[in-house]
């Protein structure tokens, strides 16, 4: 008997811990919604939901676990009901329940749904049993078909996405350095544009004139200032289209 009691106490301890964790996460989510609603983003709300769902699952697991004795078999009865304010109770419930009077037990110690809810459930159950067997079967099949179709659709879309992403990764070639260089050189230096046709279509003799100038230039300078020659000839050559390779 004592062993069982100890067992119960330990499992209750575990339950209380889980529940209080759950409570604090809910508190955190509410706090977030109330105070950060201006800056709050969807991923962070999703995070909170994920946390809650995880905690609920683990609470469920504890309840169903082998170590917890069947709580259904335990009896719980109010021993003392008083209209006086009970401060220790207030503290325990963080000020939510200040006294344990006659109003409280029916709400807090309820083990069955409220009568009206129960009634509604009953109605649905009778409705369900009224349904013909084959009709129910048909509907079930329909639903199954629907769900599996939906699943297929989602899976194929997901595959497509993943393929797409994989495709992008395998082919990151969206730009080419060579093209960049070619385009910049074209804009800045007229690469490939000058060689395609005579440079001075309107006055073809200018090309000749410049060639002459280049020659004129070479000779006198040669004797005077050898250091300056190279650049002069070079720039003269630059202005003449026909000498370029």
């Amino acid at each position, binding site marked *: 008997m004592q062993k069982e009691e100890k067992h119960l106490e330990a499992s209750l301890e575990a339950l209380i811990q889980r529940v209080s964790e759950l409570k604090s996460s809910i508190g955190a989510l509410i706090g977030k919604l109330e105070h950060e609603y201006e800056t709050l983003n969807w991923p962070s709300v999703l995070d909170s939901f994920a946390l809650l769902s995880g905690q609920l699952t683990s609470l469920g697991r504890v309840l169903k676990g082998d170590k917890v004795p069947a709580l259904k078999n335990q009896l719980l009865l109010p021993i003392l009901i008083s209209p006086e304010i009970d401060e220790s109770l207030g503290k325990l419930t963080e000020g939510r329940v200040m006294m344990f009077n006659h109003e409280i037990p029916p709400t807090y110690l309820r083990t069955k749904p409220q009568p009206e809810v129960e009634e509604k459930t009953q109605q649905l159950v009778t409705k369900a049993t009224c349904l013909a067997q084959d009709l129910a079967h048909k509907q079930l099949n329909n639903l199954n078909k629907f769900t599996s179709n939906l699943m297929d659709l989602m899976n194929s879309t997901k595959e497509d996405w993943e393929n797409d992403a994989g495709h992008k990764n395998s082919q990151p070639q969206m730009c080419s350095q060579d093209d960049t260089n070619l385009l910049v050189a074209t804009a800045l230096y007229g690469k490939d544009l000058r060689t395609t046709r005579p440079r001075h279509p309107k006055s073809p003799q200018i090309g000749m*004139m410049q060639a*002459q*100038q280049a020659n*004129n230039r070479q000779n006198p300078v040669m004797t005077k200032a050898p250091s300056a020659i190279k650049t002069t000839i070079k720039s003269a050559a630059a202005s003449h289209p026909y000498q370029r390779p």
Partner: protein
Amino acid sequence: MGVVCVYMYPVPEGKSGQQVVDSMQRQLELLGAVKTGNFNVDCETYLSNNPQGTPQRSLHLLHNSEQPASCFSVLDTGTTLVADVLFEVLMAKLTQSKSGKDGFYQQRKGFKIESKGPRFEISDFVIKIGSVSMASNFKGILVEVEYCPCAIPAECWDLMREMMQSFMGTVADTPPAIVKSKKDQFYTPADTINQYLEHFTNFRKATVASQQPR
């Protein structure tokens, strides 16, 4: 922008330029003109350092205070370019001499000529009386009259002549050559600049001619 006529107003013997300007200003004020500030048109001249074989070009760079964000460049061929005032910086780059070598163009020193003076408004007309000076020597007087509501010279010449003769007399008997040549076309600010340039060129020629005998 309307139609503009620019005339050289002769300074009679024995009178100073300032006296002529003053008497004309009094006359305009009697007509009811209101002075609305000053104006300024100036002109710098650049010469190309072209290699042999190509003709030397001269390029006139003008500003008009009426179009403060623009500058006007006129080549000796008559081609006129209207550009943002930054074009001048480009010109400066072309004039810049580098490592002892001359730039492509060079500025003619002491050749800057400008016309400046008061600006008047009288209903639809804007009148400017400019004293022309070159290297701070007084050269003469240019009177500019603009009729703002119209841009086609033929449409408003008679009206303008009547107005101009009321204070300039016979000086304004015929329209300036540029205005005459564009009688039925739209008149532009570049045409005004060309009128000024023509007068400036005449003043400069007169200066050279008067200096030569000495």
